[in-house]
């Protein structure tokens, strides 16, 4: 009787251990797959936004990506929304401007080809700017203009103050004002956030140390740019490994992506 109970207990313990191990293994598989799905989702989000951008800027420490995207859909408050907002939600018809370098297409924005800036200064002048007081708050994109810059103050029809100092000195620059969406990807704890014009969406959230790595490469002569993205995570079954083994495990999860801007790069 005692022997039978002992054997039975031993078998039950073995079954229990097996069950727990299987559950942990199944959970690891489930978790791995789930995180992999989030890798794909991040890449798909970023590729979609990079393709339709005017400018993409990546930064390290902390990792982030900022995309400047044409404002295709008319929103409430836009100047072309109509008196009774009858055009809200509709697709915007672009405008075209030209200079000796070719044509520029804008959605709800306008472009000047005679902008003058001085590195380290926040003043922008443009003879053809036709600025008004209502231009304050418009986004500004162009060569020598930091990403995320807006018009902070109106001086006169040819001069405005920028919210950030220019990074380049020059005249005759092509600069676009207004109506561009800014989409930023950032890391917050274990989550990847997508922020479009202040609206935050969590596009991925994992306990697996999901870690994106962004780098934008500008091809100045070709007037284009591409964004490299690689995303890794540390599977939960690898958390007990030493740092070298963890690095190996993380490397094995790498997902790469390269997205080219479809539009001519601005700035």
């Amino acid at each position: 009787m005692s022997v039978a109970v002992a054997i039975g207990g031993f078998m039950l313990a073995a079954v229990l251990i097996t069950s727990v191990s299987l559950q942990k293994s199944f959970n690891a598989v489930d978790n791995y797959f789930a995180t992999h799905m989030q890798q794909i989702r991040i890449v798909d989000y970023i590729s979609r936004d990079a393709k339709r951008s005017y400018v993409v800027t990546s930064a390290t420490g902390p990792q982030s990506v900022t995309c400047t995207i044409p404002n295709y859909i008319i929103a409430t408050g836009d100047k072309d929304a109509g008196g009774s907002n009858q055009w809200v939600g509709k697709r915007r018809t672009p405008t075209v401007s030209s200079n000796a370098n070719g044509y520029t297409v804008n959605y709800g924005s306008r472009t000047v080809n005679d902008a003058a800036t001085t590195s380290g200064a926040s003043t922008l002048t443009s003879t053809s700017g036709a600025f008004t007081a209502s231009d304050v708050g418009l986004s500004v994109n162009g060569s020598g203009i930091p990403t995320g810059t807006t018009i902070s103050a109106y001086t006169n029809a040819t001069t405005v103050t920028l919210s950030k100092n220019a990074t380049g000195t020059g005249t005759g620059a092509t600069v676009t004002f207004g109506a561009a969406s800014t989409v930023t990807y950032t890391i917050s704890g274990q989550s990847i956030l997508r922020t479009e014009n202040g609206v935050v969406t969590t596009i991925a959230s994992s306990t697996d140390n999901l870690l994106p790595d962004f780098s934008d490469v500008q091809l100045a002569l070709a007037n284009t740019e591409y964004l490299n993205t690689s995303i890794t995570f540390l599977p939960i079954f690898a958390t007990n490994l030493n740092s070298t083994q963890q690095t190996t495990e993380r490397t094995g999860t790498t997902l790469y992506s390269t997205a080219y801007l479809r539009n001519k790069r601005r700035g």
Partner: protein
Amino acid sequence: MKVQQKQANAGSTIICALSTILIISLIGANVLLNCATRYNASSKQVKGWKEALYAAEAGGDIGFNEVRKICSSPGTAFSTSGSGSAPGWTPSPGFSPVPTPNPAGATTTAVAYSSGPYYLGQSNSLQTMVTVDKFYTDPADAQDFYRIRATGTARLFGIPRVGMDDRMDGSTRGDAWLRRIDFAYNRYKTTFGDGDNNALDPTDPKTVSAPQMTRRIELITVPITAFTGALKATGTFNGPGSAGLIDSYDSKNGAYTFVANNPASPYYSDSRNGDVSVGTSNFLEGGPIYGNLTTNGGTVSKSGTSISGTIDNNVPFTIPPLVKPANPSGYTTLSSGSNSITPVTATGTSLVPNWYVVSGNSSSLTVNSVGGADTLVTIVVNGDLGKITIANHVKAKIYFTGNMSVKASNVVNNNVDGTSPYLSRAGQLQIYGISPTDGSTQTIDISPPGNVWATIYAPNADMSLTGNPDWFGAIVVHNFSGNGNTGFHYDKEIAAIKGIAIDYQLASYVEDVR
């Protein structure tokens, strides 16, 4: 008497075993269910989402190809004939007119076409619809801009189920927010109509026959214009004359003066843009070139040459042939020989110029202005082109199908550089050599004496400057040669004038991500 309890023990074992199997099975089933759902999302849904974009971009390519035909084969652009895999184009139907709203200044016409569906992909699981409309015509230079909207749809294979978003917080949806699936209804049609406040085709159902994913893109095409550089030769280049030179000036500052060797001149910076582009390796330099040089496989270097700018021997380029423009209704036919034109009804505009067709060779062509006002004319010469005289304030575009052999002094352009609104004297006389359809070579021979102020675009012509003429303006030809004292002076204002559209290119890409 012994009491036996073995049967009770055996039952417990079976229950324990079955319970264990059940628990493990439940765990396994849950994992398999999750894995199946995630596999479905990662393989089928991601595939469908990407393929929907491929289909949309294929539609964009179809539309773009049709827009390019406007220049290369205008008679076949937006042909309504078609069937099967090439369904042809349909003019804008009444229930879906040209997209609106339009910004102030846009001159949208009622020109809109749609085509599709085109089926492609595995088992024709992808389809695309495309519309093209001329959303803007620049009144200043009559350039047309086209908008291409394409919708790509991919049938969704696999399990008709959304992905798992259990890692998201309560207010956000991961995959479903990004890769939207039409399970039963076309979400674009049901939510946004045609996207432009227009009623939908009442016969077009909003339901879908099978789960699908849809993506929509919009492309904007802009014209590639004839004059995008100073002097382009797709074949060989031999010039300028050994006693001549190539340089540049800006006519907004008035008439040309040579300052390329005078850094103190305020116009010095405008004098060194006499760029030469050669489409082959065949380059021979006579006199100095104040500008950049590109060849396609040449061995040109600074050593032994007088080229002021950069030299790049690895720049291939092509220039499309020029087809004869379609005559508008109401044009005037002129006989061959000598003609003197004075438009009597209107000065014309860039959009609607006075249009003349010379039935044969033109020995002499004189164009007068209407009462001294700016007068715009387009003349198509069905033969050789001879003497040309245009009065001040006349802006003429002259096409010819034959050859041109004339003394420089017989190409008379009486406009004045730096005079508003047309700053460029050369830009007022635009000469276009229509590419021979039989593959023969067109010839343009300019002999002394005199000088020429004009732009010329003749992509299949061999151009020869002999003696001492100077050409002011811009030149695009096949082969170019200049000897003696001949020279070329590029007017930088030509870059703003641009010339006619010779092709189209994509200038904007957006996706409707709603």
